[in-house]
């Protein structure tokens, strides 16, 4: 079916409502935030209109550089862990009978209903010394006495991977389920073991899906705010935590806005870079 291109202004009418929503709830607030990021802070009250670069200049300190670097590193690590766990899992899931797949997917969807707060406190209990999983290890005889596994980087990572994993699987599932199963069978008839066929055929054939999923999980993890505070030390806090801190506790709206704009720019450019590299490789 060929679709007619819209001709008269009336043809664009169905777009009016979403466009209005987008403008009211995204474009306007975001523009205000960009404007505020150039305002001057008024220590007595809030902020006053101005056009200064002071707020951006403050990043050029080692402290903010470190926080930014950590936030990006954390997001990339979470994205990589999610793919490494979710891709083989989803691939094997698509090989199971239909009913088994449905049960798993419903179970994963139910994880999405948990709020970040519940996930954070659940993991903080699991990692605690008094009631955590190390007590189980002691009971089994793997450890001599229970230890606290938090606050650590590992705990932050675990919580965030746990939170992002269902999204990863749900994004990968449609692509993997559509993958022609005869492709791996062909690899096997050509002498590849099932493992080798997976890495030689399934992974490269779905490279674009993997990259898209990496970007999605990366952006998702970059905005993480609660889990680093519940499960980590202050040095595991992300830029999002600092933004909130500046905006709410230090009443420094202009600086918080500048940081938010900066974070958006950095993540957009990283996503753009990834797509660019992907396209160049495809063209080659």
């Amino acid at each position, binding site marked *: 079916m060929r679709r007619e291109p819209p001709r008269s202004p009336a043809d664009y009418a169905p777009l009016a409502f979403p466009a209005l929503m987008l403008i009211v709830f995204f474009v306007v607030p975001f523009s205000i935030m960009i404007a505020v990021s150039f305002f001057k802070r008024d220590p007595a009250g809030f902020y006053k209109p101005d056009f200064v670069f002071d707020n951006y200049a403050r990043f050029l300190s080692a402290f903010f550089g470190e926080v930014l670097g950590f936030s990006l590193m954390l997001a990339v690590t979470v994205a990589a862990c999610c793919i490494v766990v979710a891709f083989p899992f989803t691939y094997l899931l698509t090989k199971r009978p239909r009913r088994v797949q449905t049960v798993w997917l419903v179970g994963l969807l139910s994880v999405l209903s948990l709020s970040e707060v519940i996930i954070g406190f659940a993991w903080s209990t699991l990692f605690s010394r008094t009631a955590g999983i190390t007590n189980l290890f002691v009971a089994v005889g793997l450890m001599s006495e229970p230890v606290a596994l938090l606050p650590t980087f590992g705990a932050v990572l675990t919580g965030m991977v746990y939170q992002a994993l269902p999204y990863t699987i749900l994004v990968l599932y449609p692509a993997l389920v559509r993958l*022609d199963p*005869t*492709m791996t*069978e*062909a*690899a*096997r*008839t*050509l*002498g*590849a*073991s*099932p493992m*080798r066929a997976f890495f*030689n*055929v399934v992974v*490269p*054939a779905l*490279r674009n899906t993997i990259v898209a999923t990496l970007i999605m999980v990366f952006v998702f993890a970059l905005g993480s705010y609660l889990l680093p505070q519940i499960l980590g030390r202050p040095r595991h806090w992300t830029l999002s935590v600092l933004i909130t801190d500046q905006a709410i506790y230090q009443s420094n709206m202009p600086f918080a806005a500048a940081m938010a704009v900066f974070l958006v720019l950095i993540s957009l450019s990283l996503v753009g870079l990834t797509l660019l590299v992907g396209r160049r490789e495809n063209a080659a």
Partner: protein
Amino acid sequence: MSGLSINAITKRFGDFAAVDDVTLAVPHGSFVCLLGPSGCGKTTLLRMIAGLEEPSAGAIVLDGDDITTLPTHKRNLGMVFQSLALFPHLTVGDNIAYALRIRGASKQDQRKRVEELLSMIHLSGFADRPVTKLSGGQRQRVAIARALALSPKLFLLDEPLSALDAKLREAMQVELRQLQQRLGITTIVVTHDQREAMTMADLVVVMGKGKILQAAAPIEIYRKPADAFVADFIGITNLLPVEKDGAGRSTVLGAAVPELACPSGMTKATISIRPEDVRLTAPGKGMLDGTVTFVRDLGGTIETFVEAAGTTITAVATPRERPDVQVGQKVGVLLPAESCVVVKS
């Protein structure tokens, strides 16, 4: 024993037997077509030979070695899938060289073999093209070359030509047969196209409902079908009831055919007679009289549908022996006894 033997193979999916106690011997270097309607178990049988499906019972023996439980990647076979299953992320050359790469062949050897195979399939110089940029026929050839890269013992093809248009399919059938004869490789093709089977095969295996109905040379299957299903599936045929009259003579549609020998003890049977064996004559001069209901003049052949004794009989003639009849005309129908084959109905 040289070649492939399939001994009492059964594959059950739940209660359903997709392949039911099939035994077949495929001599080394022969070309076998598994032929049958969809759901007859031919693809399942091929997949079991490839090791992609595990038999519920029975054994598969290749050149004296029992390969029933050998994993696919250790069987040394080449397979062409219905979807072709070319790797979209690799070039033509890399697709063909895949099996060599898996076995750790040097880059030089890989390139040399790819060149050989590409010239064999008349696609020299295509090595660096992406497979996504090829036409249907070219992709087909690449899939064949990829499967033959390691000179396997067994060449399996699952409905390999079904995606091609009719003309290209006919050309590829001839090409595939010539290639197989040149290489002398034992080949098994699954198809539902009887023309394809007749063109290529040394041995046609007609399957239905998981069983082998007849396995014989193509012309024998055509001339002496084992039962009504095979007769109807292979080419076009007239299936007519045959009965014994009071005098013990065979009668077809009420007309006596004294020369037709029915197997003893059979009072009711079916005969199969090919349309090209049916003769049309003047009314009263044949065994039956009928009325022409339709004439299909295809230029190369002329099909005439005659209604006689409540049944439609199809006759085919070439333009040279043009029957020259019109719709509605009364004709006599001759069914030469030597062309009638009594089949199980």
